[in-house]
């Protein structure tokens, strides 16, 4: 249950081909994250799976059955919208009950399921309130409750955390991950935040301009990015890229080294540089060092007493050096 197959799925808006023919397999019970910059088509792809948009070409299969022409209601999927899309004129209980009412369940059954979902999400005290009287996090949970109660084959999340403040976002991230552990249902999750992707996903699909750049586990994408785009997108702070003579020395057009794989020292190292802005968090120190090969970001653990204007030496961990050719593709 919850196996989704996309074969040659294409989407055109007028003359613009927003998603060129795309193939993807989503296994049962997987937590798949679509990630990419704004406008890369990740939300569009999600909506195609949901049935809220028609495909221009291609086939969408759900559990082996062709669902391409099925309306959203008949695909057995549930969606949590970015703005939660709660029914403002209905109480929390009625919001959660709505899909069950549409499915034609009787009142007793509906009440039972709503109570169960509310209990799981800590919403029991709010069942009679209207969405307007709830906080952002509570509304988020009602939206999830409305999705859970349908016992769908898969959950679709469209950037559900982007309307929440930072602290809440961290909490909800954990809650959603826990939910996945307990329900074990397929989840397709769209976000532009690569931290969410890395922490929550079983499998990440990196998209750009409608094309899949790479599919893999978080660690695969981190350790072996397939091209410049994925290398620069995954990992925060961004990977440092160096072109020119230094890259040529390593037989590549571009080399990349992550900030956490650069060690910094006052005295000795491979590349000399001058510290620009330095950010001291106590747990880490982020230093922006101007070198002959461009400004490099360094992430050092703990506190490093280097400040603006200081001279420093950087040494890359050569085992973690990434090499890319003229087309941006990863080498070796």
């Amino acid at each position, binding site marked *: 249950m919850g196996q989704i197959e996309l074969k040659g799925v294409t989407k055109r808006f007028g003359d613009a081909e927003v998603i060129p023919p795309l193939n993807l397999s989503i296994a049962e019970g997987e937590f798949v994250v679509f990630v990419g910059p704004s406008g890369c088509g990740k939300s569009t792809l999600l909506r195609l799976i949901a*049935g*809220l*948009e*028609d495909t221009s070409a291609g086939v969408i299969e759900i559990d082996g059955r062709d669902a391409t022409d099925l*309306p959203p209601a008949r695909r057995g999927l549930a969606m949590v919208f970015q703005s939660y899309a709660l029914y403002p004129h209905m109480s929390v209980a009625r919001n959660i009950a709505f899909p069950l009412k549409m499915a034609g369940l009787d009142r007793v059954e509906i009440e039972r399921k709503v109570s169960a979902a509310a209990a799981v999400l800590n919403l029991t005290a709010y069942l009679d309130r209207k969405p307007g009287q709830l906080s952002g996090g509570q509304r988020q949970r009602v939206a999830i409750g409305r999705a859970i109660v349908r016992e769908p084959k898969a959950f679709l999340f469209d950037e559900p955390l982007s309307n929440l403040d930072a602290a809440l976002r961290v909490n909800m991230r954990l809650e959603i991950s826990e939910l996945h552990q307990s329900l074990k249902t397929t989840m397709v999750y769209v976000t532009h935040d690569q931290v969410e992707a890395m922490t929550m996903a079983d499998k990440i699909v990196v998209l750009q301009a409608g094309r899949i750049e790479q599919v893999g586990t978080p660690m695969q994408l981190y350790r072996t990015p397939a091209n410049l785009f994925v290398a620069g997108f995954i990992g925060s702070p961004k990977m440092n890229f160096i072109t020119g003579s230094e890259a040529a020395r390593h037989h590549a057009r571009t080399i990349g080294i992550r900030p956490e794989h650069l060690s910094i020292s006052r005295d000795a190292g491979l590349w000399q540089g001058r510290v620009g802005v330095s950010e001291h968090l106590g747990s880490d120190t982020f230093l922006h060092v101007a070198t002959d090969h461009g400004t490099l970001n360094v992430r050092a653990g703990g506190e490093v007493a280097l400040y603006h204007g200081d001279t420093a030496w950087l040494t890359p961990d050569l085992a973690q050096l990434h090499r890319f050719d003229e087309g941006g593709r990863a080498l070796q």
Partner: protein
Amino acid sequence: MATQASRFAGHLMISPAMILLLGWMIVPLAMTLYFSLLRYNLLQPGTEAYTGLTNYRYFLTDPAFLTAMRNTLALVGGVLVITVIGGTLLALLLDQPIWGRGVVRVLVIAPFFVMPTVSALVWKNMFMNPVNGLFAHAAKALGLAPFDFLAQAPLASIALIVAWQWLPFATLILLTALQSLDRDQIEAAEMDGAGPLARFGWIVVPHLARAVTVVILIQTIFLLSTFAEILVTTNGGPGTASTTLTYLVYVQSLLQFDVGGGAAGGIVAVVLANTVAIFLMRMIGKNLEG
């Protein structure tokens, strides 16, 4: 958002409105066009005959037509001036902090909701009547001879009545627009050293410009078809002194029973109104982008 299924449903649901409006536009208008080419008088049924553009010739060369055009422009122009200027001033006033602002607003808005026949008759009889009207009483108290408004200045008097009715509309629109002005802009201008007159001229006026355009264009459309006020006060007279294009067509069609002539007049009115309409559509069209 849309899928094939919902798109089809969409087309189905627009159709009644479209078909009805299409019919409402085309059928009567086509008939008017047709009649305008006939010599057709209701008092002599059965003598209809095709006369080409004769009706138009008669209508456009009738001295009453020129008078009517002049009157129409004077009426519409006069009312526009009064309502736009008055409306702006009132809007500025109502935007100020005052006690009982809500009540004042209700007082100012009220005339718009009075039906045209009532306001016309109330003004005609209880204010403008040279014997018993309040203006006459006031004149006598000041030792002046009462002014017979509707006999001596019929068009201006009607303009006064119509302006009284439409001033609330202009005020309300302009007040709404004024209140949508971001106070931050004004405060920024103050920080930049702009005095009250400068702030008014450089920030308030441009912001209101769009609303004023809307007011002018919408009112023009409605003012062109002013009818009840004329019917009930002067019947277009004395002579044709207060006859507008709309009233002229009415007189020809329903009072003189000259269907052919009235139809030609109607077409002329349609052309006139459509010219104005084109500008209005361009204005409203910009709103659709939002």
